[in-house]
């Protein structure tokens, strides 16, 4: 498993778990949500793109092999 896949796999975990101590606050209120909630919700599209990236890497590898 190459380095890009490792990074893409780790990013969601760092965003959602690793950053909790830092983002545990109410202000600023973004998109109507308290910051902690906003950050975790933002983790959803971040994860989406990471898994999408993994999927593309694997599809390309399957096509080429």
């Amino acid at each position, binding site marked *: 498993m190459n380095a890009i896949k490792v990074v893409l796999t780790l990013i969601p*975990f760092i965003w*959602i778990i690793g950053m909790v101590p830092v983002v545990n606050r109410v202000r600023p209120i973004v998109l109507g949500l308290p910051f902690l*909630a906003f950050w975790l919700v933002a983790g959803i599209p971040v994860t989406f793109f990471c898994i999408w990236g993994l*999927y593309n890497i694997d599809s390309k590898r399957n096509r080429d092999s």
Partner: protein
Amino acid sequence: MTNQIVAIGVILLFVIGATVVGMIPGIRQKMTLEQWAVGGRDFGRLLNWFILAGEIYTAFAFLGGSGWAYARGGPTFYILGYCTLAYVVGYYVLPAMSPMGRRHGLMTQPDLVEHLYESRSLGILTACVGVTFLLPYLQLQLTGLGLIIETCSYGLITRVPAMLMAFTMVAAFVYLSGLKGVATTAAIKDVVMILAVAFFGIYLPIHFFGSVGGMFTALDAAKPGFLTVPGGTKNLDVSWMMSTLVLTSLGFYMWPHLTGNSFSAKNPDVLRHNAVYLPLYQICMLFPMLVGFTALLIIVPALKTPDMAFMALVRQVLPGWALGLVGGAGALACMIPAADLILTTSMLFTRNIFCRTVGRDTTPQFQAKLARVVVLILTVIALALAIYLPNMLVNLLLTGYSGVTQFFPMIVLGLFWKSSTKIASFAGLIVGEFIVFYLILNKLDPLAIWGLHLNAGFVALVVNMAVFVIVSLATRTPAGIERKARAIDGMSSSPAASTTVGTH
């Protein structure tokens, strides 16, 4: 009076409608065990989506999501994070499991364990542990269902008749259609639930505060710090949240019914593709929370049962059809996961406990018939427990997530690490479960240690993992590694590998 009639009408429409849809696959075709248990392994992206996504939006999502927001505040937000991460885990784990299932005729989680470790006793242990944690989870859906229908019918349909009615219908379509029934009804449930929670989650805050941001500003002013961690609780702090996120994201796919569900996929690409899009579904978890937060500001005096927050607010503010919509969606949110749980528990008992011990010489046809009968028996047992002993299983439920996550080293490392051994699995699992039960029964969840508050299951998992790795390294043999490699890569040259699971 009209409010009540409309509400009940809407609820019945959803519940009966879903049941009918669920029964259709079973009426149209006579099913083999494989078609009944794993949908014939031909679910494409859409059906697979509904069956995986659907299982997440249970009574807890509906009642607990808003109840937690109402009572605890900030800690509730862990719910937004753990499923998202679980899909990353799933991206790797599910496409590894599913082809193995197809190749070797695996239908259940213990089947998988038995295959990976060539151990019938480990499979039986896995099945027993699985049933232990599925039963209270099943009973929770049932109790939640009773509460929802009673509240949303303005008390006209009380809990016991509600449970009896709904569960009879669930038993009916599970008996007839198995997993296909679950998947088709899940599709209805998901659509209804998304529409209902999105509508109320956006409408209610706007109705009272002009905007979602307005509601949160008002809440922050009324209860400063409530919207962060630990919010309204004393000990659910940052370390709790982080350890709980780790536990629940790793443990998510360790629930027995999700293994069975993933075996239904047509091919691994279906699972990978859905792993990409399933996270987006998570956003829906925000909506019940918004309702719970709004309820906190609006409902006076404070509710005794936080889980009622969603329904209480709607009942206070909107007419009968709206409450009926909540009731119908909520009922489906309980019934469909309950169906999957009943199906899985029946398969675990029939195939992995009974037919691996006392009933070793049974034919596949007998197994299929028995599994269906067990569905009916289980329904009766669950109903009896829910009606007469509703609190008996609460402790088991609390240990539920922590308990099933202890499967993680055995299954995930078992799928990818050739040195993983049977003895390590026993050791890790037993140690893990012991710690889980010890901590939770002694009210040590979260465990306060070193100034942190750690989720009990997380603690158990760490120890479990360490034990598993150490014991594996100590007990591996070259022959064992080779056998494991064959089990994982599917190149079975020895006849012994195919007689265990595939032919039953």
